[in-house]
């Protein structure tokens, strides 16, 4: 994306009908480390990659519990994400107090989207620079939503955001039709594989990723490191034993990923996703 004379203010339209400040905010989401979400009929799994600034520091918290039945994974400006998580927690707890029942996730997501929209229409504000994957339960089952800095929200069976999320999305696109009936284990396995896809060949271990689950009869909780490592071992072992026949996707993906990602990275750095240039992202 190139600078132009219509991108100084969020309240200035471009002649092509775009709000560049909002699109730049969505770029900030693409620069954050990856977050992945998938759902079955009864469960939602959120996973994210934890990249620390340096070896000396700890990593930033990217998955937040909003209520027993709602959790959120963020990518982008984590400070903005923290503030929005606090807002979501506040809305949930107020609803619970007044009505003694959990706030339906679909309604929370709309309130969040309306809050984001306000920042796209005030000259003294800036859009939130964070994308949120909101997973939650309501009367009609498990849901996964993506909330955008533009104030749009979409419901997904599975989605990934942040840097190198395209690799995860490719994997998820191949498999998503099966997710509806997935078991707890299978859903987490798919989440971990999708996370591995974004690591570009780096070894997946529990110290660099976080996994959280919520479901019918299972309140939101973040899996502890040991459990995650055990699960990683469980499926990586499967790959080694059964070889290319059983998991041709994973093996081929690992090789292909390195080459594909290198090309992708080169493309990203230069032109910031050339195919996107002609299309205004908000029109999705």
């Amino acid at each position: 994306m190139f600078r132009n004379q219509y991108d100084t203010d969020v309240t200035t339209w471009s002649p092509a009908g775009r709000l560049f400040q909002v699109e730049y905010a969505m770029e900030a989401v693409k620069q954050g480390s990856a977050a992945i979400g998938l759902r079955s009929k009864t469960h939602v799994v959120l996973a994210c990659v934890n990249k620390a600034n340096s070896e000396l520091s700890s990593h930033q918290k990217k998955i937040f519990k909003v209520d027993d039945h709602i959790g959120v994974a963020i990518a982008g400006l984590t400070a903005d994400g923290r503030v929005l998580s606090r807002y979501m927690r506040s809305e949930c707890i107020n609803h619970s107090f007044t009505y003694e029942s959990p706030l339906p996730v679909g309604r929370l997501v709309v309130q969040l989207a309306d809050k984001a929209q306000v920042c796209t229409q005030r000259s003294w504000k800036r859009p939130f620079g964070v994308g949120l994957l909101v997973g939650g339960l309501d009367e009609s089952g498990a849901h996964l939503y993506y909330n955008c800095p533009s104030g749009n929200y979409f419901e997904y069976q599975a989605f990934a955001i942040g840097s190198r999320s395209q690799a995860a999305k490719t994997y998820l696109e191949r498999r998503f039709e099966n997710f509806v009936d997935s078991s707890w284990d299978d859903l987490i396995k798919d989440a971990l594989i999708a996370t591995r896809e974004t690591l570009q060949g780096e070894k997946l271990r529990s110290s660099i990723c976080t996994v959280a689950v919520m479901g019918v009869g299972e309140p939101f909780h973040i899996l502890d490191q040991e459990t995650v490592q055990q699960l990683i071992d469980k499926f990586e072992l499967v790959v080694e034993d059964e070889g290319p026949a059983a998991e041709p996707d994973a093996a081929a993906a690992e090789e292909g990923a390195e080459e594909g990602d290198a090309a992708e990275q080169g493309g990203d750095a230069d032109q910031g996703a050339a195919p996107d240039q002609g299309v205004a992202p908000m029109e999705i």
Partner: protein
Amino acid sequence: MDSNQAAKQHSLVGSEADSQRTLYPYVTGTSVVALKYKDGILMAADMGGSYGSTLRYKSVERLKAVGKHSLLGASGEISDFQEILRYLDELILYDNMWDDGNSFGPKEVHSYLTRVMYNRRNKFDPLWNSLVLGGVKNGQKYLGMVSMIGVNFEDNHVATGFGNHLARPLLRDEWHENLSFEDGVKLLEKCMRVLLYRDRSAINKLQIAKITEEGVTISPPYALKTFWGFSAFENPTVGAEGSW
């Protein structure tokens, strides 16, 4: 005069617009009785609105449907009940406007009413009602009560006002799980008959409402059969001529 006004301005109790507070009720409804039965909730209330000791209004509907899943009955100040219906109307309207497959069930409405009643009580400006909230949602039956000071609870059978003293004992003895509709109505009518005999603000014109998973039905008004032919009522002045 001046010192009176000065005193009012320094009052710590209530808001400055004292004339806006409910100090005592004017037009009141008497007991509401309700119980859980096999398919849902049955609720009964008479149609009287008393103006002090005068039975002034005889067609007051004290049972109203709320949304798809709930039924509200009220005793106490009728105008405050109408105000509550306006609050609930707005609540259900906004709930419907979401149009997202989620809807407020009886538990949510009950909780909301509790908060409204309690907050008004804290401002020393209560809504002078005892409310009975019943409903069925997703097969779950719910029956609860909220008082004018915000006390709330759930139970298998509830009553307000005189009903607590005259009807609850009957219900405690004779209520059981999975009452049929006919048995439930018979039990409620037994309670309402006792109230008719003994509560001077009750009138012989009542409605019984039922709520099940399918929805709310409020019966048209009808009267209970009463029996006054007790021998003690014949020649009442036989021992004391001139009295009545």
